[in-house]
């Protein structure tokens, strides 16, 4: 529904802009993340949420108050928050005896929960515990996934997709090479996922490409996959649907051979070769006298046959 298609039209330009920002579009906005504390969140979990908020600024919202909900049982309050703050990614932290240091990371489609994966935090080193310089907020991170386990099971594949979606940042056409600041490295090993973030130091090497040295900067987490709530295949397919306008256009009737010459194909209708327009040679033009003699030649033949 457009802002102009509502029963109650917006009365101010500001309200109209607000509604237009939230309506579905062909090429979408950058996804916002909301970071929520559960009813019994402890210090570790709160600190994790704050660190992730620092990584995701300004595309994130950190809720200060505790919200007593259970995402895996009842998703309505998450959906309500998502609608109010227009956030499609969320992270929910809680702690109880059965699931200590619990972190639920998930995403929404059309303000309904699409995927949710529950991770347990085994070890956590915060941003403030590592004493070195940090990178400015709002930079686009580099993402690296190591380990063959990320492609084996469907759970791990969705988790990889979810983590890319969460930490990706804005999609830009150009990037300043000197501004590549930090890298998030995810390793899957023995059922655990090691999440480390390093600051990038570009050192001189002999050639144009610099040599990389890494310095541990940010939050480092050791995670374990607990429960998952993944979307059904058809809902997932529906959410992945790309509009026709954004699909890459095929260029038809153009081909290249091995030498690099480009060939094009033109389709023509059948030509009547007798009516083809050729160059006019004035000397060969039939003079009226000649044409009359030709006719006279043709006519006697007909009389003879009769």
């Amino acid at each position, binding site marked *: 529904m457009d802002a102009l298609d509502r029963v109650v039209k917006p009365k101010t330009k500001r309200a109209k802009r607000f509604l237009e920002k939230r309506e*579905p579009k062909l090429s979408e906005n950058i996804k916002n993340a909301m970071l929520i504390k559960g009813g019994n969140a402890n210090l570790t979990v709160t600190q994790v949420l704050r660190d992730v908020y620092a990584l995701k600024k300004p595309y994130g919202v950190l809720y200060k108050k505790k919200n007593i909900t259970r995402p895996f049982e009842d998703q309505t309050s998450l959906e309500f928050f998502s609608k109010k703050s227009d956030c499609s990614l969320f992270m929910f932290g809680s702690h109880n005896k059965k699931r200590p240091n619990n972190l639920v990371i998930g995403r929404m489609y059309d303000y309904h929960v699409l995927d949710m994966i529950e991770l347990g935090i085994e070890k956590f080193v915060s941003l403030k515990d590592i004493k070195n310089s940090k990178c400015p907020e709002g930079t686009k991170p580099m993402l690296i996934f*190591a*380990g*063959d386990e990320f492609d084996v099971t469907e759970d791990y594949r969705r988790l990889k997709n979810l983590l890319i*979606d969460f930490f990706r940042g804005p*999609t830009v056409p150009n990037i300043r090479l000197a501004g590549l600041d930090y890298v998030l490295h995810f390793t899957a090993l023995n059922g655990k996922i090691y999440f480390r973030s390093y600051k990038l130091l570009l050192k001189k090497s002999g050639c144009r490409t610099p040599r990389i040295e890494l310095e541990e900067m940010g939050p480092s987490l050791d995670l374990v996959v607990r429960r998952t709530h993944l979307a059904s295949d058809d809902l997932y397919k529906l959410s992945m649907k790309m509009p026709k306008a954004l699909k890459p256009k095929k260029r038809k009737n153009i081909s290249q051979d091995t030498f690099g010459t480009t060939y094009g194909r033109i389709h023509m209708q059948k030509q009547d070769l007798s009516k083809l327009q050729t160059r006019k040679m004035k000397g060969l033009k039939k003079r009226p006298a000649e044409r009359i003699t030709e006719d006279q030649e043709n006519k006697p033949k007909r009389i003879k046959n009769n």
Partner: protein
Amino acid sequence: MEGQSVEELLAKAERDEAEKLQRITVHKELELEFDLGNLLASDRNPPTALRRAGSAPEAELRALARDNTQLLINQLWQLPTERVEEALVAHLPEPATRLPREKPLPRPRPLTRWQQFARLKGIRPRKKTNLVWDEVSGQWRRRWGYQRARDDTKEWLIEVPGGADPLEDQFAKRLQAKKERVAKNELNRLRNLARAHKMQLPSAAGLHPTGHQDRDELGRAMQVAKVSTASVGRFQERLPKEKAPRGSGKKRKFQPLFGDFAAEKKNQLELLRVMNSKKPQLDVTKATNKQMREEDQEAAARRRKMSQKGKRKGGRQGPGGKRKGGPPSQGGKRKGGLGGKANPRPSGPGGKRKGGQHPGGKRRK
């Protein structure tokens, strides 16, 4: 001597290059997969070194991260770059990883009543200026909205028109007219909106009495009301000239179980004969009807194309354009021959039909 020194020089140059590249080369068994649009790299190699490290894998993790990052940076540095305001900027490709959307695709809105009419007539919006000169106030004012140029409700002197009641309040009359116009506009907007939503949910549209239903909605509502009796509409009376509704009645007709024995015997023997015969049977009626329908569709598609081409040439109607205000024989169903057409149809494969009907084929609707 010189040959040797040239060779030596070349070898030395190669060694130098190898040394230079040594600082940035990383050896991996399996190549990484890169998605440079997202600044993403996936390493599929099994992490054997990490498994050996055991409990404190920090150093190993950092080494692995450094290698992977080096490879990613190598790829990024090979992208086409340009200089934008003293900064070296690389041009990233489109992101290759497919990620789900956050909201569903926007649905195309159906056209409003005015837009349909304008499309039919080929009317295009004319560009209007924002400000209009207002004689009364002697300044440029906006065309509509707050403090607009020609606001007839704001006049301080109105002459009583010739045939009007001298005791009538002309100012109140103008205000009333404005209110009516605003209300009518709002009504039309809501009706357009309802029509747009009806396209998306056509089921229970006209069944509630709103006072603003159109003809088909009322007809459908009446039919539904007729059938909603205990005897499913069998004993409902009809008006003298009212026709029975189309489409109601049994959808399949079955023969009674035992009736005409001679006809049954004939049908069964005919069936056996058809099954046994080697040559395929041709149902002339069906074949001719199919052919006629195909020709109709082709002609309709051609007419639409011609009308589209006509529209593109500045809104003028082409030779085959559809005209709603044209001669009445064009609209509605065609009965019998086609001699009633006013505009010349492009004669394609249907050219032979202009004289009369097909031999042996019945025109079934």
